[in-house]
């Protein structure tokens, strides 16, 4: 029915090597339990809340008034004297960090196949998480809007009172 135009392939080019065929299959271990379930639910719940928090944050910081131009020590100081913004930023910090860390954990699980690599990367991730969350929390709570001896020019207007 068809006309053979070629007896051998016209073009043959080489590409990379492949895995050994019939590699034995083992699912490494069964790890049942609700951990992944909770983490999945958390990603969604925190996502919803984060939308409000992050957009609110961005809006106030970048859109109201002079936008990014207006951000300076005074601006931040002014915000954190208000417990409302304190709670807001704290919540945002925690949720975003847990959400992001958990997201990165997933990514590491996907692409780092060797147990050692996985361990190292996750160790670094959790370390970064701890440092950032602790630091951020401390800053929000121990923040001193009108530090003594600072140039009053740089401080929020209420400091001069």
């Amino acid at each position, binding site marked *: 029915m068809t006309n053979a135009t070629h007896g*051998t392939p016209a073009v043959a080019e080489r590409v990379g090597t*492949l895995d050994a065929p019939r590699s034995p*299959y083992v699912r490494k271990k069964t790890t049942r339990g609700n951990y992944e379930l909770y983490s999945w639910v958390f990603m969604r719940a925190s996502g919803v809340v984060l939308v409000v928090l992050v957009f609110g944050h961005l809006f106030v910081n970048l859109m109201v008034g002079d936008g990014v131009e207006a951000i300076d020590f005074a601006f931040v100081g002014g915000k954190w004297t208000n417990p409302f913004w304190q709670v807001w930023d704290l919540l945002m910090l925690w949720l975003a960090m847990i959400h992001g860390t958990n997201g990165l954990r997933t990514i590491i699980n996907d692409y780092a196949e060797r147990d050692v690599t996985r361990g190292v990367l996750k160790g670094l991730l959790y370390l970064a998480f701890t440092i950032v969350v602790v630091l951020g929390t401390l800053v929000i709570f121990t923040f001193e809007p009108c530090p003594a001896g600072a140039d009053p020019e740089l401080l929020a207007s209420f400091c001069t009172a």
Partner: protein
Amino acid sequence: MTAVMEKADASTRTGDVPSFDVTIRVRRFNPESAGESGVESRWDEFHITAYGTDRVLDALHKIKWEHDGSLTFRRSCAHGVCGSDAMRINGRNRLACKTLLKDVNPDKPITVEPIKGLPVVKDLVVDMEPFFASYREIMPFLITNGNEPTKERIQSAEQRERFDDTTKCILCAACTSSCPVFWTDGQYFGPAAIVNAHRFIFDSRDDGAQQRLEVLNDKEGVWRCRTTFNCTEACPRGIEVTKAIQEVKRAMITRAF
């Protein structure tokens, strides 16, 4: 019998089946041709003449039967019901026997590669064992408590409809091997296993839902799905795979809370 293709335009009314030339690029891999740097795979190009109703499988057969007998692929039914010939055609997973050449733009070379994520055995043939192992793990059979009825179990048409979609699965692996998560470390159960679990979890006659949900609650279970929808796009049976996965996820959440 002559091949028949009735087309609306008058030019083909004569009964001549229009033919066209097409180039097929096939990814080859011969496990027995070890070179200096191990076993290599390569691209081969073949030029063949095809007809209007020819499928990619026909093209592969033409290559095997008229050009190069060593081209290796699986196939059986040739009409999309046995699930033998899932492969990657122009970058997407499809069944070769269900993909008409004229539908995949025969003006350009058509690339054909093995499905991803499973070890390649030879040319387009991959080792299906990991795939079936996952399938077996989800207990793909009816589990019932209590006494067997003497006749059939009663099930309403609505209850039957509930899981109809996932009964269509032919275990072709097009979905699992299209899943970016499955490609990563191959540990994910994969959409096909979940589809087959779904088929029983939502069968009103089955009492094993809890056990299956437990299995799929695994770290490598449903939660690894990132809703990329590649599986749904790839499924030759038109199963709404991602939807089935979501339903299983929701069943687990309802169970946990």
